[in-house]
């Protein structure tokens, strides 16, 4: 079974600073996907960024980027020029694709989350 560990329960930074959220995972799989989700106080889980394990290039989405270290099983999220609207719970998640068609679903395993607070 896969496990996902987020070692920072809570982080607080000043607006406009850069912040990095850490995530490690444990798997014996070679093909998988990694995601960061954001959950603001409105509770709507929003996909921030995704990374495919077979791609060596780190994914970026505007101010959000990841540092994917496959050998170390590490997948950190960097938020540049942080904004007040970035205040949220952030969840790292791992997905192992189904091994065969016709059965099961691609299931996400989540970490316990990091509560990020952006201070004005």
């Amino acid at each position: 079974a896969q496990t996902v560990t987020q070692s920072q329960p809570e982080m607080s930074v000043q607006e406009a600073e850069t912040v990095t959220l850490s995530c490690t995972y444990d798997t014996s799989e070679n093909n998988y996907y990694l995601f960061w989700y954001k959950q603001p106080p409105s509770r709507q889980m929003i996909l921030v960024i995704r990374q495919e394990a077979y791609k060596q290039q780190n994914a970026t989405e505007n101010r959000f980027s990841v540092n994917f270290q496959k050998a170390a099983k590490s997948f950190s999220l960097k938020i540049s020029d942080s904004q007040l609207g970035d205040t949220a719970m952030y969840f790292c998640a791992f997905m192992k694709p189904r091994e065969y068609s016709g059965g099961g679903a691609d299931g996400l395993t989540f970490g316990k989350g990091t509560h990020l607070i952006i201070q004005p």
Partner: protein
Amino acid sequence: DVKVTQSSRYLVKRTGEKVFLECVQDMDHENMFWYRQDPGLGLRLIYFSYDVKMKEKGDIPEGYSVSREKKERFSLILESASTNQTSMYLCASSPLGQANYGYTFGSGTRLTVV
């Protein structure tokens, strides 16, 4: 705008009641999921379904059942609600065989059992 809709945002029920949490998606997704979210525990999978009338247990199915009679609707049932089922419940959906899609989530139902 694609959407996963959970019928109730807040719900208060009494111990022993049968509780239905409804989830509807408009994206024609095959997969649907129910998670519960508790502080310090993250999201834990209760049940999922990858086709109509198909269901599989997740990590914490005890005390819950599910129903999927139509592709767009996935219901979570608490047969006899207990106080330890007080939690946030999140529904999600995804297309079959597209692992890189991730999930689309609903806005959650905060259930309190008194």
